[in-house]
């Protein structure tokens, strides 16, 4: 008799520690890969599990390996069909190598190996250099709130949730099925007993009848006790299901200047800003539409691909984008039904004279329509010292400054590096209660 041991209930994830060590080691490389992937991903896909190729730098395990392109080797292979000794076969040109009997080193020839990172790990890596406080990171990972909703009946529950109608119906059915003596039968018997008992001169027959009735009464009462009026099996409770809280819909407008002055770096920063805004909104709303409006000297609604990648030349008239947005809002997203968020990214260039028009549009219309309007100006890192947060700056910046103090739901900031993005959000969510009561 051997020793059988059932290990199935042993704790799982024995190698979780090893996995974390590995992640830590490959962190830098994974971060870079995630960053690249996020750059090319659609905004709404950022918040998902990602597969990344096996990191090579931090995670290589070198050993002394014979090089494939040197020396003389002998292979023995099975399945000869037509060769005889002395035959010469040309070598395959690239890769493969002769008989193909090279030992693949661990991790080296695994091009298609994808390492799956969970959503949390992706967010951690992606937001690492945004300097988000941990509390925000946690709430980013938070699931939606639930509201209990009636959903049928259950046999277990709290007394407060008893459904009386359903319970009584069950009780009635059971009483019928088990032939519980009715109240009427009981009273008939007791009445007759009472009648017989008061008879002054009971005959032998009536005495006999009385005896029978008493037995009958006892039987009925016993049965009524045995089959109670309401039994625990009858009881039904109202069942509640946790349903995700039906949030109002939100629409997020991404406005961006795509004229030639917006380069790769500027677009990347803008995208991070948009992604972050989307994640924050996603926490709050069930459904979010995203509208992309790009502009040069004219504005157009485009898809995400075009928004980030295709280039367009031309001048810069910012107000066209604002007008386009107003048009779309009136068209498709009435502000009574939709929570409207807008984020505008630009390098601050604008045609002369247009900035004031923009500020006016913002003050008069957009800030009234929107829950929140953020303007991010993406500047060169060297310019941060020159500009600081003073009033001077580009024409657009100066014009928007006038709106900034006036409207509580308008935020503007300058971004030179990823770490600058977060403070914008801190201000946004600090004022959120006020913005919500306004609705």
């Amino acid at each position, binding site marked *: 008799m051997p020793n*059988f041991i059932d290990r199935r209930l042993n704790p799982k994830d024995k190698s979780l520690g090893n*996995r974390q060590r590995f992640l830590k080691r490959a962190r830098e490389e994974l971060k870079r890969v995630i960053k690249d992937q996020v750059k090319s991903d659609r905004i709404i896909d950022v918040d998902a599990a990602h597969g990344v190729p096996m990191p090579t730098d931090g995670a290589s395990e070198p050993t002394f*390996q014979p090089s494939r392109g*040197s020396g003389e080797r002998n292979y023995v292979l099975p399945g000869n069909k037509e060769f005889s000794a002395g035959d010469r076969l040309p070598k395959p040109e690239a890769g493969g190598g002769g008989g193909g009997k090279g030992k693949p080193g661990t991790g080296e020839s695994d091009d298609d190996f994808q390492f799956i990172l969970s959503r949390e790990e992706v967010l951690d890596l992606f937001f690492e250099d945004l300097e988000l406080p941990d509390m925000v990171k946690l709430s980013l990972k938070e699931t939606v709130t639930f509201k209990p909703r009636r959903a049928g009946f259950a046999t277990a529950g709290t007394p407060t949730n008893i459904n009386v109608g359903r319970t009584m119906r069950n009780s009635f059915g059971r009483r019928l099925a088990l032939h519980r003596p009715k109240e009427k039968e009981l009273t008939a018997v007791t009445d007759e007993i009472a009648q017989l008992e008061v008879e002054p001169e009971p005959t032998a027959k009536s005495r006999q009848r009385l005896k029978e009735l008493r037995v009958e009464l006892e039987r009925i009462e016993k049965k009524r006790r045995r089959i109670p009026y309401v039994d625990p099996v009858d009881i039904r409770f109202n069942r509640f299901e946790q349903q995700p809280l039906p949030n109002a819909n939100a629409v997020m407008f991404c406005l961006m200047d795509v004229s030639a002055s917006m380069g790769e770096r500027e677009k990347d920063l803008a995208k991070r800003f948009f992604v972050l805004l989307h994640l924050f909104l996603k926490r709050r709303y069930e459904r979010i539409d995203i509208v992309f409006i790009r502009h040069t000297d004219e504005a157009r609604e485009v898809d995400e691909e075009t928004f980030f990648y295709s280039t367009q030349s031309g001048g810069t008239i910012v107000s066209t984008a604002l007008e386009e947005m107003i048009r779309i809002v009136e068209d498709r997203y009435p502000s009574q039904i939709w929570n409207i968020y807008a984020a505008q990214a630009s390098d601050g260039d604008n045609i002369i004279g247009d900035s004031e028009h923009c500020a006016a549009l913002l003050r008069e219309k957009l800030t009234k329509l929107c829950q929140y309007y953020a303007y991010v100006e993406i500047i060169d890192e060297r310019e941060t010292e020159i500009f600081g947060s003073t009033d001077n700056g580009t024409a657009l910046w100066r014009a928007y400054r006038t709106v900034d103090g006036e409207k509580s739901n308008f935020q503007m900031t300058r971004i030179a590096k990823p770490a600058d993005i977060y403070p914008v959000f801190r201000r946004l969510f600090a004022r959120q209660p006020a913005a919500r009561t306004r609705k």
Partner: protein
Amino acid sequence: MARRTTSGLLFQGSDWNFATLSRAYDAIEQVALEEMGLSVYPNQLEIITSEQMLDAYSSVGMPLMYQHWSFGKRFAYEEHHYRKGHRGLAYELVINSNPCITYLMEENTMAMQALVTAHAAFGHNHFFKNNYLFRQWTDAGAILSYMDFAKKYVTKCEERHGTAAVEAILDSAHALMDQGVFRYRRPPRLSSEKVRERARERLEYEEQTYSDLWRTLPQVAESRDPAEAERDASERKKVLNLPEENLLYFLEKHSLILEPWQRELLRIVRVIAQYFSPQRQTKVMNEGCATFVHYTIINRLYDQGRIGEGHMLELLQSHSNVVFQPDFNDRRYPGINPYALGFAMMQDIQRIATEPTEEDRDWFPSFAGNGDWMETLRDAWANHRDESFILQYLSPAVMRKFRLFQLSDRSSDRFVEVASIHNERGYSAVRSALANSYDVAANQPDIQVMDVDLLGDRQLRLQHNVKHGILLDEGSRDATMRHIRHLWGYEVSLAGVDAQSGRTVYECSTAKSSE
């Protein structure tokens, strides 16, 4: 057919429970021990889930293993392939220990559980217990307690010295795992736990009583007479026991910068490498032996009417999957399947022992027709490794069956040449070429410590004996050299010397490559 009755069946249906497992085990044990004469360690069978199987995979099949990121990498890799369906998991995993631990997957059907019990708990187990390599180089009774010690020791080091420091040493040690085994000389016997404990206590005592004052004592100035240099060198080599093939052993004993706990870590890696080296040298035999044993036992049980026909079909199908050998030009060709080759050779030995042909009598006069195939096989299992087993037992019949041919590939030519095939003239050439390809020592780069000038520049001089002109891959070579430098503390140089001509083919050094 008439004698078959369902009452004798060990199990019915495909579900298993511990009662059927144990009934099947007893029947298998009876055949294995009484009819086949196997001798095995006591068995311990453990039921695990697929998740746990993946865990076991990634820690090189040991139930206990210290923590290291590379195991996490391997786990991610295995998991990826498993989830994608590229490859299934093994039905079992067996550990060379006493008692012999076999993991059975819970997903297996009852018939499969019987098959893998026969395969692992008797086939592999017999091989582990009897093969000379395992007897000499591994200590089945001590490995589990050693792994337990290793795991705890690594954890303790991480607590005391930080994870990063421990990882750095383990990374470097892992890079040298292939060069961390003794091949040419007999190993010192694995010391018992007590001895190890005492050695460790002594080290700890030395650490505690270390006084920095001793270092400040003036050294005796030595006159450097050039005439004596030569004698010094040979003296030095004698003291350091050079040349030394086991780089990890050398670094553990003689590294100039390592602290005692770091040496102990090297030792742990080295012990594990040594423990696994017999398995690498006996892949064909080990798997062949296990496959042959399960095939024999299952057939015997079927003949006895203890396994039903439906189950037998299932078992045969899975058996033939295991011993499937695709041709070299098949897309599925991964190399020669050790299960297929080992099983075919062992079946062939059985055939030669019982009904030999003329050819067999010529080739194997020592056992052709001796009738006792089981004894012949037990002898082969006990006294050979893959290389010598193939060299002695690969018969022309098997070569014809596999249609083996030999390709010679010279890197300077634009073609490969078919050197010999499975015909009268080619048999012995094919056989020795195949045997040679299973010689682990011959196929791994042979790198040895040649010299080290402890009083001079302290450079560690390694020599690579270049065989057949096969050089080292330069990228991984330089990376590995950096690991050696990390452990040695000073520059390391490597010279490639052609084994036949004695000519130096290349030279490299960490000093140069870092410039």
